[in-house]
């Protein structure tokens, strides 16, 4: 969506025009869903969180700084809702005495040695490896390598300096690589 068009739509939204919000929702719902799904790993929960993100963003448009990318602000709203959701879910599980609902599957180390097999299974392997990362590392990998946001946008979403983002990306990628190597993936 062109920046100028987006600004005009947002101005109408601020004036209470809900119809002007439709093109914005349709333009960004896919990306928000991708982010929410990566974080909470449940499609129904992710859908609810995306919906809630758009509603909260609409009601808080006065807080949005028009000089900054709207999508980054929107994603920060969604990310915060996902984190709150995950905290509540963990608290509930701690009350129930449950561990992870869907524990990552352990892949037999050494099972993946052939290059063709590696290519076929790489998606599942990476998903499993991502699941095993710390929340901070998984989150930054999702924002940088999956959502393909710029460092400045990620810094805005996470509310940390750009240098910290780059440093966190480094350690996250290194952790992901280490997890994949533990699962039998070999790098040259």
């Amino acid at each position: 969506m062109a920046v100028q068009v987006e600004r005009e739509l947002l101005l109408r939204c601020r004036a209470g025009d809900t119809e002007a919000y439709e093109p914005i929702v349709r333009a960004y719902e896919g990306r928000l869903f991708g982010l929410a799904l990566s974080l909470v790993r449940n499609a129904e929960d992710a859908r609810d969180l995306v919906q809630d993100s758009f509603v909260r963003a609409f009601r808080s448009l006065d807080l949005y700084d028009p000089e900054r990318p709207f999508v980054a602000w929107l994603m920060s709203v969604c990310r915060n809702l996902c984190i709150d959701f995950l905290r509540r879910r963990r608290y509930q599980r701690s009350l129930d005495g449950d561990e992870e609902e869907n524990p990552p599957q352990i892949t037999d180390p050494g099972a993946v040695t052939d290059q063709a097999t590696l290519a076929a299974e790489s998606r599942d392997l990476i998903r499993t490896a991502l699941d095993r990362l710390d929340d901070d590392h998984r989150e930054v990998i999702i924002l940088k390598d999956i959502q393909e946001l710029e460092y400045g946008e990620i810094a805005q979403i996470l509310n940390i300096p750009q240098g910290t983002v780059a440093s966190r990306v480094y350690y996250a990628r290194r952790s992901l690589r280490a997890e994949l190597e533990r699962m039998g993936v070999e790098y040259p």
Partner: protein
Amino acid sequence: MNRTPGDPAAVPSAGTGGCEAYREDLMRYIDGELTGDALRRLEEHLAECTECTREAAVFRSLKGELQNMGLQEPEIPGGSVWDDVNKSVARPTGWMFLIIGVVLYAVYAVYVFITSSIDLLEKLAVGFIVIGFVVLLVTVAYDRIVDYRTDPYKGVEK
């Protein structure tokens, strides 16, 4: 590591080791966000450091695999969220009109009641009943709101 990206004073010269100082710039390089002198210095370092070159290749490969997983915009179950969002954002407007209408009607009703020809005693009796009912309604609603806000388990699903 707290240094300004591309700060020459903080970056050791290429070939003298100290790969840690290049980590942040290496990430920006892989992600296409490194420019100017910082880019030149990193390229000089990479030309002499096989470890960083190898690490960059591995991270590029990982990045490519992550981007090819199709996770950026997966299909939303049940389709677009717009209809649900629209219901939620449009609802307050409906409430606002409803409340304005009720208040206007109440003011008019009070005016008609006060200016009517019925006895003063009857007016007082009806007035006290209405006021008492409103006070009870407001206090019950207030208690429920306070209970909800202080409920430590409100976020926990049953």
